């Protein structure tokens, strides 16, 4: 072995020490438990006892006859789609309103983003009373959190209130990156406001839209805190999400094997949904 090769090996070894601490923690406490969860999902483990029996794919087959699962996926889906669409629409609308930097706009932007900084638990508790005291007490409208049908929409709205600011920030930054002369040229050639929005603003914003959609889809599909704090999944199971149902199976129902199987399916679905959506939206990016 010559000197040059030796030096190169030494360099690579030192490089690896840079990566090692982060990689070690990441593998030990994220990757390993994730992989270990897969064989666990093939057992009838109750989460407490020392013994567990291999049951094959029984847990996976049982999911098809479990009505609660369909309900939880439906609620999670409604929440994800509602928050995704409305936060983006409101976020973009407010960003368009506040895109120029002046005093009033800056203050308003600061305030719109403020709710995002609170924990989801606090947001939910405050809104519980917004619904019961302002919406029902003051305006005499029914409380969505008490209704089988509207509960999940009520919860989605809490998240929309809190996260619109996040979208707004991304859209404001993207809007400020669009060169002003594009609009001047459009103005001269007689394009209407709406045409300008469709032909200039939207295509220029598309990368921001794509990243917002992916971020929100990730958050929405993983939702846990909001329904826990706002309704505990109720009334009945009207606002129970998949993350909550997994948690209940693991810790309350003592069906850890089954809960783990559900967690595996849940993870795969999140991967598939997000990669498909990302791929479709990115393709559109090229067309625009």
């Amino acid at each position, binding site marked *: 072995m010559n000197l040059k090769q030796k030096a190169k090996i030494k360099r690579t070894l030192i490089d690896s020490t840079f990566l090692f601490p982060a990689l070690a923690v990441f593998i030990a406490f994220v990757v390993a438990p994730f992989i270990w969860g897969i064989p666990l999902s093939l057992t009838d483990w109750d989460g407490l006892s020392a013994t567990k029996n291999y049951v094959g794919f029984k847990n996976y087959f049982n999911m098809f006859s479990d009505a609660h699962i369909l309900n939880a996926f439906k609620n999670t889906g409604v929440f994800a789609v509602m928050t995704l669409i409305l936060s983006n629409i409101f976020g973009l609308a407010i960003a368009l309103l506040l895109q120029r930097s002046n005093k009033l706009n800056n203050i308003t932007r600061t*305030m719109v983003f403020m709710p995002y900084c609170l*924990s989801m638990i606090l947001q939910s508790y405050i809104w519980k009373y917004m619904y019961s005291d302002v919406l029902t007490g003051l305006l005499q409208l029914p409380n969505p959190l008490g209704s089988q049908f509207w509960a999940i929409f009520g919860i989605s709205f809490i998240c929309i209130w809190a996260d619109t600011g996040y979208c707004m920030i991304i859209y404001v930054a993207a809007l400020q990156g669009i060169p002003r002369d594009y609009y001047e040229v459009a103005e001269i050639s007689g394009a209407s406001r709406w045409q300008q929005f469709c032909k200039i603003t939207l295509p220029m914003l598309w990368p921001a839209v794509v990243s917002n959609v992916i971020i929100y889809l990730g958050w929405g599909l993983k939702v846990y805190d909001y329904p826990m704090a706002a309704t505990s999944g109720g009334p009945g199971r009207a606002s129970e999400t998949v993350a909550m149902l997994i948690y209940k199976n693991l810790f309350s129902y003592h069906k850890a094997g089954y809960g783990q199987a559900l*967690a595996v399916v849940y993870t795969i679905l999140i991967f598939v949904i997000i990669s498909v959506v990302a791929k479709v939206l990115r393709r559109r990016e090229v067309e625009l």
Partner: protein
Amino acid sequence: MVGEKVWEKVIRVIEKLAVLLIFLSPFYIAVCYAVKSRKELTAGRLDFPKVIHWENFAEAIRRSNFFQALMNSTITTVVTVVVLLIICSMAAYVIARRKSKFFNSMYFAMLGATLIPFQSIISPLYSELRAIHLMNTLAGYCIVQIAFQSAFTTLIITGFVKSIPLELEEAAMIDGCSQYGTFWKIVFPLMKPIISTVAILDALCTWNDFQVSVVFLQKESIKNLAVTQYYFFGKNTADLNYAFAMILMSMIPILILYFSFQRYIVSGITAGAVKG
């Protein structure tokens, strides 16, 4: 023509004030309920408070073990953020700079890991922590937080390192500076903007976390603010003034953080969005 312009301006301002009202009105409830006595709450919840009942805060502190929780939240957040910044900036540096397949594949592994829902690792992680005697300890909680946020943190810093020009490092290397010397003396100082941004985002994330905390912090003495809030509110729905006094107090540290470091939060979110 001029009249039309003025009108348009007035409408814009009204729209902005409406936005402000919608986003701020829920905070009125928190403040208003927190400072009223029980009698005032039953008389008219939404009425503007006439006097501030400071004793609500004292009572909420007494009932909720508030300072212990505040302490626990502060310690765990500081430890998590500091460790994350050190280990993730080192990892990000080699991932961004070395062209080998291994480091490149790390990037995609971490990108994929950001999608893993916490629920899919919670149960094995619980057994793992119990096996190494870190269950129900602040150290165990910090490790879980660090592990779970390491992927996202590394990705954002990696994006930034790629934008730092190479010349300085090459010069340092030629001058005989070791890899560690180059990193700590040349590259790390250049990372300052992204470090501040990531620090504040990770701090928000750790401070506000509930789903990890509720599983791994089950002993009274190690509960953090998020868990304390959750149980305290559930127990005190009859004494809303105390419940909201507690809510208001737990909001204050995070809002101070927000107003002091707003600039970094905003730039962090925009940087994260570009990476997608």
